[in-house]
């Protein structure tokens, strides 16, 4: 199939970018979207031009590294990752517009590559459970109902791709943050630090300059992992109860 590609090209963070049009004439319907770009890049390199920069890693839908805003949708028209999107989704002769994720908190580094380290900083702020050293506990010592484990696992399926931010008209990161808050809040192992966790993660999310949720549900519809907005409600509950009830202890409880 033949395609016309309108691709965002931008030299670096500071440069002013623009769309460039490319012709892709021998596209197989079995190619993935990234393979289609690989072939185009090979021809650009042969011509001595700068290839189109885009993010990718696993190419099997699990790492969250691929991005691309394709024809008005993050990861293209299907609810999947760009690496799992195939060219048969498009029509012969179609014009495809490819843009980077757009958000103040995700600045463009080059072409279609954006800096998503804001997500890493949110995770580092509280998206973990502290594990003390000691013997390995038995896996079945803590009883967890199957449905709770399933719910937590659904939240943990988030791959941190940022499509939710890209899709949201407010560039809000609440679907991502709520998934990370939920995967721990639901489980007994996460309970110990739940209040500090949600306070710190929300504070970091705000500091990064993401917008705030207006419950438009565009994120849920575009998320390649089907993360539900019920997680956002859970995060709101977690946050409000933490803010209203959490307290600091100022003196040490004995010891040295």
């Amino acid at each position: 199939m033949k395609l016309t590609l309108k691709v965002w090209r931008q030299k670096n963070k500071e440069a002013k970018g623009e769309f460039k049009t490319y012709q892709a004439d021998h596209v197989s319907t079995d190619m993935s979207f990234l393979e289609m770009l690989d072939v185009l890049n090979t021809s650009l390199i042969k011509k001595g031009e700068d290839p189109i920069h885009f993010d990718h890693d696993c190419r099997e839908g699990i790492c969250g590294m691929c991005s691309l805003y394709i024809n008005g949708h993050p990861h293209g028209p299907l609810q999947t990752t760009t690496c799992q999107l195939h060219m048969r989704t498009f029509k012969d002769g179609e014009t495809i517009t490819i843009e980077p994720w757009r958000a103040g908190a995700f600045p463009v580094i080059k072409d279609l590559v954006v800096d998503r380290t804001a997500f890493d900083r949110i995770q580092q702020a509280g998206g973990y459970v502290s594990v003390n050293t000691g013997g390995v506990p038995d896996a079945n010592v803590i009883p967890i109902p199957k449905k709770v484990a399933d719910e937590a696992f659904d939240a943990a399926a988030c791959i941190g791709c940022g499509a939710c931010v890209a899709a949201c008209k407010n560039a809000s990161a609440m679907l991502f943050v709520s998934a990370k808050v939920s995967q721990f809040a639901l489980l007994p192992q996460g309970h110990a630090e739940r209040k500090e966790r949600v306070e710190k993660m929300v504070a970091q999310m705000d500091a990064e300059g993401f917008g705030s949720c207006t419950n438009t549900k565009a994120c849920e519809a575009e998320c390649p992992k089907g993360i539900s907005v019920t997680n956002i409600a859970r995060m709101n509950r977690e946050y409000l109860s933490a803010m209203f009830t959490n307290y600091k202890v100022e003196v040490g409880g004995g010891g040295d």
Partner: protein
Amino acid sequence: MFCKSLTSIFGSHQKFPNNMKWVIDLFTSSLGRKLIMALTGLFLISFLVIHCTINAMIFYNDNGETFSHWGHFMGTNPIIRTLEIGLVAGFLFHIVQGLMLVKSNSAARPVSYSVAAPPPQSTWYSRSMGLLGTLLLLFLIMHTAHFWIPNRANQFAHGEELPLYSKMQDVFSNPLIVVLYVAGCVSLFWHLLHGFASAFQTLGLNHQKYNGLISFVGTAFSIVVPLIFALMPIAIYLKWIN
């Protein structure tokens, strides 16, 4: 600033301002600001119930007698008048916070997309709360200029309420005004169709067992209340009521 001035009041102890910092953190956070939107939004919804019920008394078609009785009670009862201060504050908080959110949310995406195709699961009105709210604000300015402001001004100057029933007949004899009021009600319909359920989600009240109920009540409320409101200027203009 706020902390500093409190410190000067409470002296060197500093316990109080330190302990209260969380309040400032909460209400300047994205989630805290949304909490304000949801709480004030639900409060304004409760106001709409009362406002709509009392105004609907005109449909008794008894020359405004029942309406004037209750309207007079609302306009003069000291408890209601005190609550009115809360209502004005509620409106101001909702409007100022709403407009600030619209501003900071659009600043969160400094460069916009050249092609945008929002998914069908996301409704246009959920993405247009700022626009619908602004239309409501314009409506509110016109509406308070018609009734509330002149009435309170008259009470202040002469200690007497204006004859609101005849004022309504007067205002709604102009077809342009009737159209603008109906347009205001349409904006309210869309604002509530998203806002009602959205407020529950913001408060974290999302539960399999009750989501259906919330969205049913929200939809019913969004249709019924604006419809009753819209019928008032129409009924008066068409002289169904006289």
